[in-house]
């Protein structure tokens, strides 16, 4: 459908690609599908069948390819977004959960949750470049903007593992709080934000020294502290905000990214996992696993403006312009 749209637009020469609505892709863990959301209308326009238990999602730098961790299929799938077909399956190692793409657009760092490994795959040659031993239940993955570091979190070992991408070797470990779940570099790559689900904290780490600089905690009125379980972290490009998804606390924390002060808590759907900004960064989408919907946060007003029903147990989300 979108293809015909595009063809039409090109044929008429009236609209460029950017004039089309931005699109969100949401992985539904228990439906083995991807929900496609039109971000103009905020409606689900298509549901695409993919491999089993899709979780982590990411886009190629040109936004043409969608990578999908199909955890129970033990593979990473590559979808051509123009045709919405799976065009390739990469040898990911067992149970891929999250991954990160190197700025060179080729090296994919995949955490293999069941095998305590990080697998590095060349997305062009399909070769496995390296497998790196890390702690138990590797989960979060991020590559620094300069491409120097790949950082993996291991949920049971409670560490951040620093992998030097030039040698594909593990060179350092940072012990953080219980069950680190997600890591996110800031735009200039100076700091790394790491959430700890059971510890209930987010650690902000100075990348140069790999030391913890600040540990954020969260308190929400009327929510038991045990239910505050930070998962996804997103930083706005203007350096103003960090958003932290707090899992079964059903809230997203808004943090001042400069002073590290927690500014507000926004009520979203149940068990909020991950987030993605719209291209203009005016809206933030959250996946809410238990309630099976996506909440839309208005970033200027810091209010939740809408929720969109998707498939069962939505997990990952990415947005293309």
């Amino acid at each position: 459908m979108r293809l015909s749209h595009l063809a039409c637009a090109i044929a008429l020469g009236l609209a460029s690609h950017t004039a089309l609505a931005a699109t969100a892709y949401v992985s539904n863990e228990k439906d083995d599908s991807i929900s496609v959301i039109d971000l103009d209308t905020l409606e689900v326009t298509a549901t695409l069948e993919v491999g089993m238990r899709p979780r982590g999602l990411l886009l190629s730098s040109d936004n043409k390819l969608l990578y999908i961790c199909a955890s129970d299929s033990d593979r990473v799938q590559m979808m051509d977004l123009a045709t919405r077909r799976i065009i390739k399956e990469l040898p990911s190692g067992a149970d891929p959960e999250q991954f990160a793409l190197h700025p060179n657009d080729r090296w994919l760092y995949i955490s293999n949750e069941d095998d305590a490994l990080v697998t590095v795959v060349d997305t062009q040659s399909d070769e496995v470049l390296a497998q790196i031993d890390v702690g138990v239940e590797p989960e979060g993955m991020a590559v620094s903007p300069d491409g120097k570091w790949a950082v993996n979190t291991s949920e049971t070992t409670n560490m951040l593992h620093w992998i030097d991408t030039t040698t594909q070797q593990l060179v350092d470990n940072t012990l953080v709080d219980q069950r680190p779940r997600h890591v996110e570099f800031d735009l200039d790559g100076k700091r790394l934000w790491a959430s700890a689900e059971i510890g209930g904290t987010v650690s902000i780490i100075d990348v140069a020294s790999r030391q913890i600089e600040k540990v954020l905690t969260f308190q929400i009125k009327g929510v038991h502290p045990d239910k505050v379980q930070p998962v996804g972290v997103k930083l706005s490009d203007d350096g103003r905000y960090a958003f932290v998804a707090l899992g079964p606390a059903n809230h997203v924390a808004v943090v001042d990214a400069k002073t590290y002060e927690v500014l507000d808590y926004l009520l979203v759907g149940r068990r909020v996992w991950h987030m993605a900004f719209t291209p203009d960064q005016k809206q933030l989408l959250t996946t809410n696993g238990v309630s099976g919907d996506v909440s839309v946060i208005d970033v200027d007003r810091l209010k939740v403006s809408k929720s969109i029903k998707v498939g069962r147990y939505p997990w990952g989300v990415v947005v293309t312009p």
Partner: protein
Amino acid sequence: MRASTLILLSCIGLCAASAAASEPAAELQVRIGYLAYIPDPGPLLSNVIPEPLDAGRRGAELAINDSNSTGRFLKQQYQLDSAQHEDSDALLAAAEALHAEGVRLFVVNAPADTLHALSARLGDSLLLNAGSADDGLRQSRCLRNVLHTLPSRAMLADALVQFLAVRRWQRALLVTGPTEGDLAYAAALRRAAKRFGLRIVAEKAWTFDNDQRRSAQADMPLFTQTAEYDVVLVADERGDFGEYMPYQTWYPRPVAGTQGLTPTGWHKTVETYGAAQLQKRFEAHAGRWMNDRDFAAWIAVRSLATAITRLRSTDPMAIRTLALSADLPLDGFKGRKLSFRPWNGQLRQPIPLVQPRALVSTSPQDGFLHPHNEMDSLGYDQAEVSCDLARGT
């Protein structure tokens, strides 16, 4: 080769760190004893699906593997010394032998009496009880050097009866087997019934002195012909007759307790909050499903390792003090951070309610509030307990 490079690299990291601290980091060798004595339950009527004989031990082994993966980055090496014996005395002797070798941390999968004896003989050690659900150990006869990771019978019963209250099943028939364990389980159910407003309309003891020409199945409808109830509660810990109760009751009503809808510390059908990964790791390790004993032993070893990582010490009393403080959040894949109750050393934890192939619910149920921690609505709360471990009584 990969692994050796890794060890070398992590070593470099640590050596650098320790050089800064001007003292070489000693390699921390941690030995944990696993002591098991599982009494023979005697002949059972429903013995089609036997319980695994290595329940508990396999969980402890997996936790050692998990801990070593963290340990290799921290230069900590964990080792499990297992001793499983057919009688209590042999186990005591094995425990003393390990103690003589310097082991001071133990995970115990044994009945309450054996645990009492072990606690007395291993006075300077820390024992984690992963085998006895005895309520006395958590209420009036607390042992100074014992923490409990297996849920008590009171926790299980409260978890179940909260759910019955939510479903508004208010009248129960209670059927109790003949063993001490069955009587204790029934007592826990009575206590829970009183706490959460369940009315026990009739109680019957299962003696199986019925007409021997009839099978248990055939006997059940008549046996359960009492005043009307909404649910049959069964206390049959060994699994002797309880398996024959569902679908055989006089009134068409559900069965819950040790059979039917069952409260348990762990079950194959627990999968959320990262549990799926633990289940997979366990199945790869043991070749079978993880049960509540396995989980209790797993979390016991993980609790020790988490404390050791924090303290960088294996001192049993330091670990005990940290465990009984509010400062040791534990990851048990149950959706909440777990911690030990300071008054009786019981691990607070959500309790899954399961049927053989599905998770039915997880307690504490929504709406059962508690001034400090909703998980403390399960089992003996501070005010009901005469011991206070954190203060040393």
